[in-house]
């Protein structure tokens, strides 16, 4: 299941895959993923995929397993919790023209990068 706040990802994948669109921020996506991981969904892709810093891109897409899986996912829980901590750290140096406040042109590029990273992972 793809958890995303990127409309380009929803458009590209909703016919093919289970997509949960999050009406909200990069952080809201991470929190949604955390909630799913805590009830047993496996973390499939790394939440900080790509080298774009969390205070630059407003978009985030993360893949988790469609269904909860039995067992204790300590590693996944640590990774998603650390990722939220990283996001909050970067948020302290918020940029007036980045994240949610990025220009429409920059947002288009950020949507494209987020989608293409996900695509190159899923198609590999």
């Amino acid at each position: 299941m793809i958890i995303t706040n990127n409309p380009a990802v929803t458009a590209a994948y909703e016919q093919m895959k289970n997509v949960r669109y999050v009406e909200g921020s990069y952080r809201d996506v991470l929190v949604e993923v955390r909630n799913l991981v805590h009830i047993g969904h496996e973390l499939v892709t790394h939440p900080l995929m790509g080298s774009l810093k969390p205070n630059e891109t407003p978009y985030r897409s993360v893949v988790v397993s469609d269904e909860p899986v039995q067992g204790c996912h300590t590693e996944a829980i640590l990774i998603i919790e650390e990722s939220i901590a990283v996001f909050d750290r970067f948020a302290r140096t918020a940029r007036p023209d980045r994240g949610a406040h990025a220009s429409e042109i920059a947002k288009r590029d950020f949507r494209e990068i987020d989608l293409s990273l996900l695509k190159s992972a899923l198609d590999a």
Partner: protein
Amino acid sequence: MKLEVGYIPIRDIQFGPTSKVDGNVLYVNQDELSRLLLQDEAIESVALDIARPGESVRITPVKDVIEPRVKVHGGGGIFPGWCAKVDTVGSGRTNVLKGAAVVTAGKIVGFQEGIIDMSGEGARYTPFSTLNNLVLVVEPKQGLAQHAYEKTLRLAGLKAAEYLGKLAADIEAEEVHTYETLSLLEGVRAYPDLPRVGYVLMLQSQGLLHDTYVYGVDAKQIIPTLISPTELMDGAIISGNCVSACDKNTTYHHLNNPVVQDLFAEHGKTLNFVGVIITNENVFLADKMRSSDRTAELCGYLSLDGAIISQEGFGNPDTDLIMNCRKIEAKGIKTVIITDEYAGQDGASQSLADADEAADAVVTGGNANEVIHLPAMERIIGSIDAVDHIAGGWSGSLNEDGTITAELQVITGATNELGFNTLSAR
């Protein structure tokens, strides 16, 4: 595997009617090189420019830096899988135009590529300010997708470096460096009392615009494997990474990997440099598990006493770095990790996205969030309007007088995680 690398020092680049090396000057026939590059139909135009150390020049947005090299003998050709067939390289003789580089520039994604200043404050932060750079500004045909533009620019850079490198084929080198890696058994016999040290080289492989290639193969599709360090010197690994200017490994870095150089310098004296293990930094957790498991297994198989692990990038690769470190240490092998930091503009925050108590020996390339001030330059090669958008810049980074206030991460190579940079606490 034994390789001789001959240095032909280049102290200046000039445009001229014939491409050649004369004395320590590299002459480039612009038309001939442009025609060669324009054979790629995806390219609309190519502009060639020269940036020399000390000049008031700013190059941006920088994609890759490549050192011109040529295979004189020993099988294979430079940049196997791209400019040459895939025959194994790393043996025989290679000549290098030392002090020269090809720099590729172009706005692939407007907010990620970096800056090279040839003088002033910024020049201190990038090793490429000390080189004579032939800059290729490549404009793509309209409508070319970003990933296709990346490939076009990547190939143009490699082709130009190959073209220049060939000029060094018949020139007598001023300095010759010899590097030799013994087979496993020979190494054990030759240095029975020296600690066995390996190098785990992590390659950026997160996907589009974040890729690295090994003999032409996308590194995200490799299983960690052994490679001879001299293969790196012949361009077996090249960069397709456009993201995170300060801590990406350009092709120049792979050719001149300082960890390899330092391990060779101590080889047979204080340690036995056993070899290089290359691994990747994929986005799937399953890939991370598999690759770190395989890497640790290889370290164990080689009976290493110590391993140096270098990273490329930030965030997602921090997890690979720590997994590698933890699993290799669990085999009783000491590790040192090389990384850089995003510790906030005040340097007070936690530096990495992941941590483990096994990671108790860390070398840092510096804090990428540090704020720097760059003076105006008389000449811009490329396009300056990207500065407000590149990582570490922000709206208003580019001041009206041409000065720039931004984070260190705007500078190409500033916090390189191989240690190929100039920052130091000394």
